[in-house]
């Protein structure tokens, strides 16, 4: 396998793409945690990665200009010098570019949204090796098409992001983490909207299972006074709900909270098989229970974001075609979609995404526009003929 090229300067990235145009050898960059997402790269390709750092931190504006090659760990460290942070659930070794490309998010989405909400602008290289600047440094901007959002989750197939402007937030003076025990996953479905629309709305919410016990983790960010007030409000909501009880609460720092969220995520990255199922939020618990009742039920490791209808399903199981069919059927049953993340097959047996979103034909057309020679992560997910409209 050829060595991975590390790009330090945008000019080198443009040159790399322009060279690929001449040689017709495609370029691949799947990141460090998403190599199982989409079809495998073509046999003949040039692998590359970006390096970088925080370029400018506009502390008073609560925004920052960051190389896409900067790791999340480096970004958080740089921002913390001004008591700020980037509120995204992503491992420290991922680059910001990888987070954008794969729309990486986690429980914190409840309080802060996804990269779609945190990104203000991008500089990226298109499939012709040109430097494209969209969005900007300011917090509100509707000049031109919102290509910034288009590229979130585009898996590096439309362009290579090399610089980004992001929102930052103040590090809270205290984090109050709370753990609830839940009688059954389905009971969460009716609980989430009352919780999120109450004064007890947390900044994150995560459903997990340990030793057969379901736990709903959540947290509040704020002053000690504020967190205490929200905790009291939570007790009131729990008092009205059935099948829930508070089993632990702990005041901590943001760093401790981040470490806890990272531990929860870390289990997923170690899984031999991992598929993400997206369903309407109020069906999360029902889908969880249906998965448990499936033929693989007892072997599955599941965790979920009940506020957003996301289930991570996997474990030390063989991802054969029967399992693929089962999770695909499960997604269809709830009008949802499933996406393979880690699979021990050859990478070509299962469709990466099923069922395909209804706008897929339009996305294929956009791929042809932004990467006309098909050089950027070709064949990863945006494959197939564009149906003439």
């Amino acid at each position: 396998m050829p060595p991975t090229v590390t790009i330090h300067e945008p000019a080198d990235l443009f040159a790399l793409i322009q060279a690929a145009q001449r040689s017709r050898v495609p370029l691949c960059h799947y990141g460090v945690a998403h190599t199982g997402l989409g079809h495998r790269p073509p046999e003949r390709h040039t692998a590359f990665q970006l390096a970088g750092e925080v370029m400018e931190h506009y502390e008073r504006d609560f925004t920052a200009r960051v190389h896409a090659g900067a790791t999340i760990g480096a970004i958080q460290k740089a921002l913390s010098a001004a008591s700020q942070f980037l509120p995204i659930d992503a491992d420290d070794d991922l680059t910001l570019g990888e987070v954008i490309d794969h729309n990486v998010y986690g429980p914190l989405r409840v309080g802060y949204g996804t990269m779609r909400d945190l990104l203000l602008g991008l500089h990226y290289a298109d499939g012709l090796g040109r430097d494209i600047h969209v969005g900007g440094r300011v917090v509100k901007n509707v000049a031109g098409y919102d290509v910034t959002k288009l590229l979130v989750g585009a898996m590096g197939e439309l362009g290579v992001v090399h610089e980004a402007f992001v929102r930052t937030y103040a590090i809270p003076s205290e984090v109050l983490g709370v753990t609830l025990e839940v009688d059954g996953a389905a009971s969460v479905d009716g609980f989430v909207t009352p919780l999120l629309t109450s004064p007890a709305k947390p900044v994150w919410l995560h459903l997990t299972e340990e030793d057969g016990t379901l736990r709903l983790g959540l947290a509040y960010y704020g002053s000690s006074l504020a967190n205490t007030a929200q905790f009291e409000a939570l007790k009131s909501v729990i008092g009205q709900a059935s099948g829930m009880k508070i089993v632990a609460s702990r005041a901590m720092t943001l760093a401790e909270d981040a470490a806890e969220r990272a531990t929860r995520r870390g289990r997923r990255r170690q899984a031999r098989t991992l598929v993400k199922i997206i369903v309407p939020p109020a069906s999360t618990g029902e889908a969880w229970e249906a998965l448990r009742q499936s033929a693989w039920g007892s072997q599955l490791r599941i965790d979920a974001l009940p506020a957003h209808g996301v289930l991570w399903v996997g474990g030390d199981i063989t991802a054969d075609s029967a399992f693929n069919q089962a999770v695909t059927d499960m997604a269809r049953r709830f009008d949802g979609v499933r996406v393979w993340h880690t699979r021990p097959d050859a990478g070509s047996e299962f469709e990466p995404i099923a069922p395909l979103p209804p706008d897929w034909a339009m996305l294929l057309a956009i791929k042809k526009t932004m990467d006309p020679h098909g050089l950027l992560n070709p064949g990863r997910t945006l494959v197939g003929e564009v149906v003439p409209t």
Partner: protein
Amino acid sequence: MTLATRDELLDDLRGIVGPAGLLTSPDELLVYECDGFSVARGTPRAVAFPTTTEQVAACVKTLRKHGVGIVPRGSGTGLAGGCVAFDGQVILCTSRMTKIESIDLADRVAVAQAGALNVTLSEAVAAEVARWNQNHAELPVGPMHFSPDPSSQRASTVGGNAATNAGGINTLKHGVTSNHVLGVEFVLPDGEIVRTRTAALYESPGPDLTGLLCGSEGTLGILTKVWCRLTPKPEHFRTVYTVYTLTFDACKSVSDVIAAGILPTSMEVMDGRMIRVVEDAFHYGFPTDAAALLLIEIDGVDSILDEQLERIMAICRANGARDIKHCSDPKRRTELWSARKRAFGAIGRLHTAYFTQDACIPRSRLPEAVERIVAIGAEHGLKINNVFHAGDGNVHPIFFFDESNAQEVQRTLEAAERVLQYCIDIGGTITGEHGVGVEKLAMMPRMFNPATIDTFQKLKATFDPDAVLNDGKLIPSKTLRIELHRPVSPNVPGGALCPPHHPPTT
């Protein structure tokens, strides 16, 4: 185009939308010759009012068959000339597509036709919450709403909000429209109907087409349906009302509050001229000798708001606020925000011709920027009023002009262009929430490099290869040139159309 062809076109459109769904007489069309940016004017050939997505698609196919350009329009409350028809184009107005198809509180998603009014949607959601709680008294849900709150929210449509990615007063904390849109349905220029969602999903794998359509100003597709994210409606507020002798100090207060890591719901500034206009019109009791009034609102858990309030007031005091009042009384709060939202109505009482700029700048540059904008106006002999979303750095200088004076129109446009260039130079953008429309078209090549403009044009061509959909808006058109600086006739200075057969102005 021959008259016979035109009649055939109108007959075909009537066949789709019915006689009551088509306007063709000059007096009826007058209403549709401009939006809130009255410099740009053009009379549509006709205005059609489809009521379903299928009717929109059928109208589009018919207009294509007759080779007629299409301009989508909601309520026409835009402020950049984005829904003005030129060169015989026909307006497809979605304002009669008002159905709210579903409100799903459990998933926190509402699906509305594009013509549903912003405020109507939130009212319908409130009613649904009340119904829900009657049946779920044991575990009720809290108030919810569709959060985007442009000043036009009583008149503007959900589709128009999405098509322009509308902002508003509360966007500082709660985000702009695209943050609250989960999916859209739209009609392509060949009549094909595309959806980016089919269920209440909060994620769709792959590139974010919904995000691209939001703010595309009707140039890529005609939005017909919107999947709206419903969020908690804040119930507890504190509103701070501060008065300054210098506008600079008000802006410095805004910058310092942001820098302190406080995230209010909104921070709005009115300058002295604007205070006097509003006070003359509505008599709220504002001090007419003040240079600036800063309204700040915070929302959240009731018991902790006072702590934040004290921090904010201390910052305002340190920046020389001469008067600081606060309230949690809903009646007074409503009055204060009513004053802010009625500011443009107040201007309309005094001036018939004005337009509002919409640049957005880094918030830390606000104090100097507002001074510079006023200075640019003075250098052009113009009076500028300011009322703006200070917390976002979104400035709204309002330029007044005499539309019967072509030279003054020209001078005003030149001053506006200088303001925008200044904002670009300090790291800002030409539009924070109003959109490009035709108003800021000339500034696009200054804002974006040629490769980026080329990308925009290619994206446009991917959706609309024949440039029939709102051509000449948002990005420079290859087939239609709209020239704001040249009079279309002696009676209408500015807002002129220079089609290709006319020599373009340089």
